[in-house]
């Protein structure tokens, strides 16, 4: 009985999701079996050849490692900065709390492309950051966007900046759901800030933290805009990440099959993150 009644309500979403989520997923994955032949201008069946080529591709391995560094450092930094900010924004001793909280949200509303433009300007060789560094007496400030050792980290900074508002607001909501007297009791017992957070706060808002870490890791791993606008993966692939590498193959070189192979590896990594999350939550 219930099922028949639920169907009309779920049907529109279900139909749309089948057309634009399930079918494209299967279709996109199946592209890996084909390769583009420039001579004939056609896509021909090539079996698992794209995967064979992929595992011999040193740029792919490099982009994979970059993507892991990009995701883990971004999410870790976002989390620590946001946690600190959220606990401060939650403090009863802070004045103008509401105003501060609203201002914190600002980077969230900006399009990724605009965020990237802003940081590209900040990191220009003769731009604001290097001018400030020169003022502080740094003789040779790094060429943030063109030094192969620095370029990826430059992108990471921009990404952290963009992610802070969402993470902060979610943690703040978690903190607000805590009973005030727990923290009060900890303070009376003489617990330090660090002890209170690690022993009491983090365990009590573990569920929120898990969902934030999962979503933010997925979004960061899939993120395209910042690296595309800041460095295009350069110089010489130094800051190449998987989404950009897949795009370059699929739309720069028309090798959709090779792009799909990269995408499938990404899918496997991300689905394992989701499975980890579900297992952790179901426990």
């Amino acid at each position, binding site marked *: 009985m219930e099922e028949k009644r*639920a169907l009309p309500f779920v049907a529109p979403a279900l139909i749309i999701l089948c057309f*634009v989520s399930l079918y494209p997923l299967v279709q*996109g994955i199946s592209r890996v079996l084909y390769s583009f032949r420039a001579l004939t201008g056609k896509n021909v069946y090539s079996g698992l050849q794209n995967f064979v080529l992929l595992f011999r591709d040193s740029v792919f391995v490099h982009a994979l490692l970059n993507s892991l560094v990009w995701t883990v450092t971004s999410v870790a930094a976002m989390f620590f900065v946001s946690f600190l900010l959220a606990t401060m924004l939650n403090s009863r001793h802070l004045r103008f709390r509401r105003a501060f909280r609203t201002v914190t949200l600002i980077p969230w509303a900006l399009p990724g492309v605009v965020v990237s433009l802003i940081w590209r300007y900040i990191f220009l060789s*003769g731009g604001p950051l290097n001018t400030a560094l020169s003022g502080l007496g740094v003789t040779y400030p790094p060429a943030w966007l063109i030094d192969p050792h620095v370029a990826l980290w430059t992108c990471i900074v921009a990404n952290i900046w963009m992610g802070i508002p969402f993470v902060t607001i979610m943690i703040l909501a978690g903190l607000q759901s805590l009973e005030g007297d727990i923290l009060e009791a900890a303070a009376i017992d003489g617990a330090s800030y660090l002890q209170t957070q690690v022993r009491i706060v983090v365990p009590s808002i573990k569920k929120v933290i898990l969902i934030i870490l999962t*979503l933010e890791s997925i979004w960061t791993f899939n993120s395209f805009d910042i690296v595309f606008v800041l460095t295009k993966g350069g110089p010489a692939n130094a800051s190449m990440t998987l989404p950009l590498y897949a795009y370059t193959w699929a739309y720069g070189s028309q090798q959709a099959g090779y792009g799909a192979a990269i995408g499938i590896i990404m899918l496997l990594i991300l689905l394992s993150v989701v499975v980890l999350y579900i297992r952790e939550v179901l426990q």
Partner: protein
Amino acid sequence: MRMHPVKQVLLHVAVLVMIAFLVFPVLLLVFNSLKTQTQIFASPMGIPHGVTWDNFRTVIAGGTFLVNLRNSVIVAFSTVILAVIVTAPAGYALSRFKFRGRTAFSMWLLATQAFPGIIMVLGLFTVLKVYGLINQLPGLVIMHTSFALPFSIWLLKGYFDKIPIDLEEAARIDGCTRLRALVSIILPLSVPGLLAVATFSLLLSWNEFFFALVIMRTNESWTLPVYLARFLGSGGVVQWGPLSAAALLVTIPVFILFLLGQRYLVSGLTGGAIK
């Protein structure tokens, strides 16, 4: 409990430093939009003296800005409307009915978050091509709606969960159908939740870059994020003044709507996550 005054000052200083880190980059954008190229490079961080509006005139008069603005507005608002219409009943069903496949449906919604853009764009390209929707606004609307759906359904389910079930049961005893109950009792109570979905899908669609870049192939069909990226990559020396003016024009409309809707978005997101 009182806080030591020194500690309290330190707390405020620390918050201000972090807020400055979040706000100062945006201020730079505003400054640049009001400066000439020479002024920008003479003092990369300075407050503009002798404000010029030329950058804004250049952007609006030249290129495809206005056409691309129109595209962005159409796509974003269609996405919002479609997302609200589709997610409200789905969120309601997830919240109120126990049906077979309910858990599977929820898991699927979470899993969609993990699908890499490249796979989806390769697959969707094929679907859209069949219906002649490549380079067409409806094609992009469908894509954006599909990204907005999972999160919005989840958000609304959380919202509906908080509305006491007795309200509709009373109405149904009075002879109301499920749909009537949803439309005339639940939805009016869920306006904040619906506004959260609207704000979320508006931001998502207005800011989305990757799919618009791949699907919208001609200058006239670009949306604003693609316009900005092409502006930057158009070759030669980057004209930071006009580019910043354009970026501001892209940001401001949706930023104002965001400020109006953020309250609902924040409580909607956090309401779902905390439970």
